[in-house]
């Protein structure tokens, strides 16, 4: 966030051509850290309650994690660009209200309409951020309160029941009897976005923007467009997550997803994505979201009392970030 003056990694001359750009064992380990953290956590929960490691239980956990994965995946893009999106949860809540209100009129098209609408709202925030040059933290903090207000007003501060469950029924199915459809959808989102980043120049534009915005801009990367696109996608993901929540709760509510904001950000950081931008990936956020979900639902289920649960949650999250963060990629930790 501040200009590095001299604190560059030590070896400046790289004269020796035998030094390949191959990652060292340590780096490899760091890049698998989110998965390792996930496995260790699962093992710990299983030790605490042997019944936890069952097919049913895991199925329920990944089903639970689906909206969080989608939210975190969208916001990861914004974080990769060097910004942050604090509005995802409020936007998701608003979208659940929209869904409940629109479903009677739009029927099967509601899902698409929701994703389009939230995408547009995300784009609007992106445009405000880019054109007005307001830090994304502020834009989305403002967005958070505005969306909440709109949701409260249009829903009259109460939940709206969704009577027609056919529109979201497909999300409650299970693929091959074990994998919840909502999680499959979340995986597809992560996969498609990751592929888009890898197979188009978008990936390197996003990372360049995150590492060094001015260099990216002067290098001719469409920085503003990339940022707006990231916010748009983040918004669209919030909409999709809203549909998943509605499919689970049979209602839309102006505060339904509000408490998912910090877990979503936690998922991104636990995955090892640098909150300063540039370094990270959606796959990492997927692993991070699973870790956070296990913490949220696993700790109480295996019988940790609520006070200790919070203490453990705090400690484990900090420890997980300490493990997964690739310090060689981030010069200054703020």
């Amino acid at each position: 966030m501040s200009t590095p003056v001299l604190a560059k990694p030590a070896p400046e001359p790289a004269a020796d051509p035998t030094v390949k750009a191959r990652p060292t064992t340590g780096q490899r380990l760091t890049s698998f850290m989110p998965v390792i953290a996930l496995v260790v956590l699962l093992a710990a929960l299983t030790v605490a309650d042997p019944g936890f490691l069952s097919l049913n239980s895991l199925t329920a956990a990944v089903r639970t994690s689906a909206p969080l994965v989608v939210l975190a995946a969208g916001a990861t893009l914004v974080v990769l660009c060097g910004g942050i999106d604090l509005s995802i949860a409020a936007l998701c809540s608003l979208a659940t209200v929209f869904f409940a209100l629109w479903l009677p009129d739009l029927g099967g098209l509601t899902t698409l309409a929701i994703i389009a609408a939230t995408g547009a709202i995300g784009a609007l925030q992106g445009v405000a951020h880019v054109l007005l040059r307001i830090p994304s933290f502020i834009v989305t903090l403002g967005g958070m309160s505005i969306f909440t207000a709109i949701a409260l007003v249009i829903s009259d501060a109460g939940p709206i029941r969704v009577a027609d469950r056919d529109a979201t029924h497909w999300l409650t199915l299970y693929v091959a009897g074990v994998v919840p459809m909502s999680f499959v959808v979340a995986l597809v989102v992560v996969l498609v976005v990751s592929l888009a980043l890898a197979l188009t120049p978008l990936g390197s534009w996003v990372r360049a923007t995150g590492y060094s915005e001015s260099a990216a801009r002067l290098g001719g990367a469409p920085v503003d467009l990339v940022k707006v696109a990231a916010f748009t996608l983040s918004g669209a993901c919030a909409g999709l997550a809203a549909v998943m929540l509605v499919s689970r709760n049979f209602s839309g509510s102006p505060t339904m997803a509000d408490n998912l904001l910090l877990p979503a950000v936690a998922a991104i950081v636990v995955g090892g994505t640098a909150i300063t931008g540039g370094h990270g990936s959606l796959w990492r956020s997927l692993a991070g979201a699973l870790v956070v979900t296990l913490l949220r639902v696993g700790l109480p289920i295996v019988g940790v009392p609520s006070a200790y649960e919070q203490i453990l949650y705090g400690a484990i999250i900090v420890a997980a970030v300490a493990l997964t963060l690739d310090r060689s990629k981030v010069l200054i930790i703020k």
Partner: protein
Amino acid sequence: MKFTSRHTGARHTAAVVGVLLAAGALTGCTETAAGSGGGGSAEAGACDPADVTLVGQVRNESNPYEASWLDGGDAFAEQVGLTQERLTYDGDSTRQQEQISQLLAGDTECLVMNILPNGDSDTPPIVEGAQDAGAYLVTQWNKPADLNVADYDHWLSHITYDGVESGKQIGDALAEAIGGSGGIVALQGILDTGAAKDRFAGLEESLAANPDVELLDDQTANFSRAEALEVTKTLLTKHGDDVKGIWAANDDMALGALEALQQAGRDDVAVVGIDAVPDALTAIEDGTMTATVSSDGPWQGGIGLAIGYCVATGELAVEDIAGEDRAWFAEQFLIQQDNVADFVSPVTSEDDFACGNLFSRSQGAIS
């Protein structure tokens, strides 16, 4: 050296993995996860008492009323030689659903759940989850009016207090305390809860019966003491001496309002609440608060588990629960200075939880 590099040939190495995956995914979709509990087919009464799992779930343990609820659950569990699993979801609907779906993914055959849904809209998914998994469920406080308990065979009962009645009772007490006329303000609870709506409806009934009492303002303070403090301060500034009484939808908010009054140096305002938390009872003893209505947390924590336990162990069959006992109002009392001494330490006897005596506190079916 040439500095114009041109690219010929527009060959694509297009990746279609996503499409393939989606195609694969659509084959073999099922309604439920493999191996999940066998729906409503579980035989009632098949459980050995030692195999029963008792779960109590409330918003948080940092609230005296809900903490006493879980303690009541513990007391009942001890009575039958079991332990209760205490779950809290921090007032977060999403988290409540997540916990329950995780819980239902485990062994559900002899699972008994006594749940306080966060809001009306949170009840349907819980009920359906329990029904599908074959767990025994008792819910309290919040339920959408059009959701019928009798339609389910694992949702044993829904218990609540008659909010309209309690709202009206304290409304009347407040009207009496301010001498039948004057301005009052109302602090509403979380608007998305049946309790908040019913209680406010009760206030409106009371207002209709006391035409000289004027409702100056109503604001929500979300059942929270801190929010009630702020809201009351602002309302006091706004309406000044016109405020003669404060109607709060629960005791926590009433206590917050009391603090605001104290800080504003006002001792001429009557305050009423609902729930009968210990602090409120003390305040009523002191005379700083006018009235509250009893909600018996420890009993609520025990009774839900007791109903589930009796059914799970076969001492009570679901079919034998009378229709009017599937969704019912529990007994409640208006507490004022004259009778407060009777409620300072709520007593729940073991008899209250005997299988034959479960519905003794019923005040009738929810209409």
